[in-house]
């Protein structure tokens, strides 16, 4: 599902955030990505999400070699991936429902179908009652679940989440992790970058540990 070999990422300033990283994540796995702040977690997630393009090595996601793809092909790759951003990136000028409909809208789905799908996704994260709410009026945990609903609404094969429980109290965090476990149970490959050692200790998932851009 996700195969990285000798993957590296050097930012324009010259800093190498990912150094010679190789791993394989098979379909349906749930993998946690940990490491100190600045270790390169966000960078690796963005590489998998094809938001950043690798400067070295190769990365194959869903059978497509991201480093070999043309720029114009990237949007279509991204549509099969769900991404929960570290800073959520919700759109504050529209309702929760419209936020969730946005990816479907981008994919050109007719409004009626999109509406039904978006409501199902909101229901899944327990926010259907708040579909008309503006994101700013939602609590941190609710915003995070809204971001997850947006990430899963296009039924991705791979769900990527970057620090999804940052700033959440333990209960909200547990709810979020439970959600990921649910998606994983129905076959979605899940990659979660997190500092949260508690959850890792409890559920003993597969862990990839980054240190200064290298895989330990």
């Amino acid at each position: 599902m996700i195969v990285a070999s000798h993957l590296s990422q050097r930012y324009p300033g010259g800093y190498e955030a990912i150094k010679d990283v190789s791993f394989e994540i098979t379909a349906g796995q749930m993998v946690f990505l940990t490491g100190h702040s600045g270790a390169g977690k966000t960078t690796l997630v963005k590489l998998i999400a094809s938001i950043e393009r690798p400067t070295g090595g190769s990365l194959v996601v869903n059978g497509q070699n991201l480093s070999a793809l043309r720029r114009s092909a990237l949007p279509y790759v991204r549509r099969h991936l769900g991404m929960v951003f570290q800073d959520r990136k919700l759109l504050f000028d529209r309702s929760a429902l419209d936020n969730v409909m946005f990816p479907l809208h981008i994919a050109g789905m007719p409004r009626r179908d999109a509406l039904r799908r978006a409501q199902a996704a909101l229901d899944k994260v327990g926010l259907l009652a708040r579909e008309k709410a503006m994101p700013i009026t939602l609590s941190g945990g609710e915003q995070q679940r809204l971001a997850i609903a947006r990430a899963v609404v296009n039924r991705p094969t791979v769900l990527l989440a970057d620090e999804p429980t940052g700033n959440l109290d333990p209960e909200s965090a547990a709810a979020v992790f439970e959600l990921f476990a649910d998606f994983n149970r129905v076959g979605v490959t899940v990659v979660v970058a997190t500092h949260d050692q508690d959850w890792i200790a409890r559920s003993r998932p597969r862990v990839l540990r980054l240190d200064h851009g290298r895989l330990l």
Partner: protein
Amino acid sequence: MIAWLTQHRVALVSAFRRLAAMPLNTLLSLLVIGIALTVPGAAYVLLDNLRDLGRNASGVQQISLFMQIDAGKKEVAEIENRLRGLAGSQWRFVARDDALKRLQASEGLADIVASLPRNPLPDAFVVEPSDAGPEALEMLRKEIAGWPKVAHVQLDSAWVKRFDAFLRLGKLVMWLLAGIFGGGLVAVTFNTIRLQVLAQAAEIEVARMIGATDAFIRRPFYYFGALQGALGGLLAAGLVAGALRLLAAPVDELAGLYGGSFALAGPGPLDAAVLAAGGGLLGWLGAQLSVSLSLRKFD
């Protein structure tokens, strides 16, 4: 196909929504664009009316044909023959004796005419050609000048030529104005779109990261630019029409003083469509330039 149609409809709807979302901005932009298009639009309508005026006022164009002084009846008959061959043209013969009599009848000239040893005037024809266009007149003049025993052909339409040259100059000025104000329209659109891209930076950033194509992101801005330009064009047509309506009464009065009747012709539906299409095209161009530049920072 359905997805493609949906995307275009979505882009158009979102363009309209953006126009409606900021009514004051929209109104100001439309005014600027409308006024920018009013200037060349008004120039065009003015030239159009002047051309009509020129056509009406000149009424009959005349060519005066003077025979050589020794031309006899036979030669005159030959010329008459040839004039008859000019389809649609009217002409009248002015015999040299008649011309002299008329001269004698004029105040103050009688003495001079009486002192002349013999009639210095030639036989002449006054021709009113059917086609009074400057080029046609000039061609006819050349042709007649080549006829036998014709001494001189005079086009009584020097002013027609001058008027025509003036109209050509006017047309050039109009195109210059159109160029300048069209450039202004592109600049205004460029700026509006740039501000919009800035205002929607968050949406654009997210859209890109979750699978929006370049076309998806650009399309609403193109529609917006074109829509704004087209509406500005319609506004310009309205402004020109309004100005003409204000001018109608005074022009009528003026025409009455000169014993004529002349009504200003306003911009018709076709003119309005041309203005709207031109505005739309320029708006699209401005949006294209702006989006290409503004979106660079998202790469």
